[in-house]
């Protein structure tokens, strides 16, 4: 009898995930909660505001999606390196966390249409002469570990560039302010904010390293949820819900969101 119960438990362990696998969209509606992974240490996408509540562009978008689904929003603070594991291990329904689309990442998870297109720019004090990628040779360049600026800098920087990786954007910028690195690669929105915050450093946005289209990440093979999210993004853009968010957090709204 005991052995039978054990077998049953084992069988259930295999059946349960299968029964679960229909569509995350149904799960979200049935549960009444949308669980979103967002890094709250990535300004201006995810931050904590003066009331110590989650805020930022990604948080604003998550709130709009929860509103349209008619469910409550639950935010799970997810550091950049854990975005994909959080999805594949079912810890969250979707990830909205300055998540740049790359074909490499798309092997593990699925991306929706873009929700924002950021630029990765090289920033340094005025005195450091940088005009193009090749100038990075021999320089110490700070990036945020496992983020898009890490990926593009690692791929595009010429041989001889010393890339130093930090855990979050505040540390990366601090490394430049403290003279630990000569330049950093970061998103334009953040670069402008750091420059305005530290006028004495005479920081300059030197050149654009790459474009970074960002999307919502979800588990592969969930066509239903993917379709709903793309529909929602399209309608949020058409109804001008997204543009004010972009103006608020990036200073200006994009002319259009690329779709594919």
């Amino acid at each position, binding site marked *: 009898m005991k052995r039978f119960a054990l077998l049953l438990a084992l069988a259930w*362990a295999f059946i*349960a*995930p299968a029964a679960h696998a229909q569509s995350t969209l149904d799960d979200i509606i049935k549960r009444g909660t949308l669980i979103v992974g967002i890094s*709250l*240490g*990535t*300004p*201006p996408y995810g*931050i*904590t*505001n*003066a009331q*110590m509540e989650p805020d930022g562009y990604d948080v604003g978008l998550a709130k709009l999606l929860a509103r349209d689904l008619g469910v409550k929003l639950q935010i*799970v*603070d*997810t*550091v950049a*390196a*854990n975005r994909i*594991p*959080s999805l594949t*291990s*079912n*810890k969250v329904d979707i990830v909205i966390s300055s998540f740049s689309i790359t074909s490499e990442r798309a092997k593990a998870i699925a991306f929706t249409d873009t929700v924002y297109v950021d630029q990765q720019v090289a920033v340094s004090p005025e005195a450091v002469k940088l005009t193009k990628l090749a100038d990075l040779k021999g320089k110490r360049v700070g990036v945020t570990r496992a983020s898009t600026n890490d990926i593009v800098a690692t791929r595009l920087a010429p041989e001889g560039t010393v890339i130093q990786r930090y*855990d*979050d*954007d*505040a*540390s990366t*910028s*601090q490394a430049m302010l403290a003279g630990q690195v000569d330049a950093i690669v970061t998103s334009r929105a953040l670069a402008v*904010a*750091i420059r305005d*915050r530290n006028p004495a450093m005479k920081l300059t946005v030197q050149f654009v390293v790459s474009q970074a289209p960002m999307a919502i990440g979800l588990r592969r093979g969930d066509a239903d949820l993917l379709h709903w999210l793309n529909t929602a993004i399209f309608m949020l853009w058409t109804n001008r819900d997204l543009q004010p968010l972009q103006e608020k*957090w990036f200073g200006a709204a994009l002319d259009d969101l690329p779709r594919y």
Partner: protein
Amino acid sequence: MFQTFNANHVMFLAAAAEWTVALSAIALLGGFLGGAALAWMRISGLRWASGFAQGFVYVVQGTPLLVQLFLAYFGAAFAGLDVPPLAAAAVALTLYASAFFGEMWRGALTAVPRGQRDAARALGLREGPILRKIVIPQAILPAIPPTIGFVVHLVKNTALASVIGFRELTRAGQLVANATFEPLPVFLTVAGFYFLLCYPLSLLAQWLEGRMQIGVKINTKNEGVLQ
């Protein structure tokens, strides 16, 4: 876009420090029980128990705590268990503390001269009372300094739980640093909180060590009388 580091942020850090304390307390309690069990298994003379305990200690001491936390959180999810970050961190830190306490205490237990056990056996005591009344009381004192040292280490190691999104003191510090972009004052404050948590523990260790010296003196005196 950025806020200035202010009293609100300090309160936020203080609230997160409570989670650091809670996580440390859970890991300590679990580690004490687990460590006691492992130490007993190692000296029990039972081959399977001793072998299991040794294997466990090798695995836990031979892998980084960061990886253990990652496995407890994401690994458990792949095995079909949905564990919240607090539970995953508590389990990982408990296992980690158990392994280290187990080894420390085994060392303290085996450091009690073998003759004491033999003498107790010769007097007709059973293994249970020998352990309880002869060996453990003498092993407690030398085990205190390394134990407290490790407790301090454990409190600071709870910071690693931030990788699985558990909002303790260090993760709260990262959040505030990224909301203010003033990492230096923020992390100095975080360091201050850790110091406030750990310094009393160091004082406790010092005080207990002082008491241990008294214990040693009394012991030598007694030995003199016995001789």
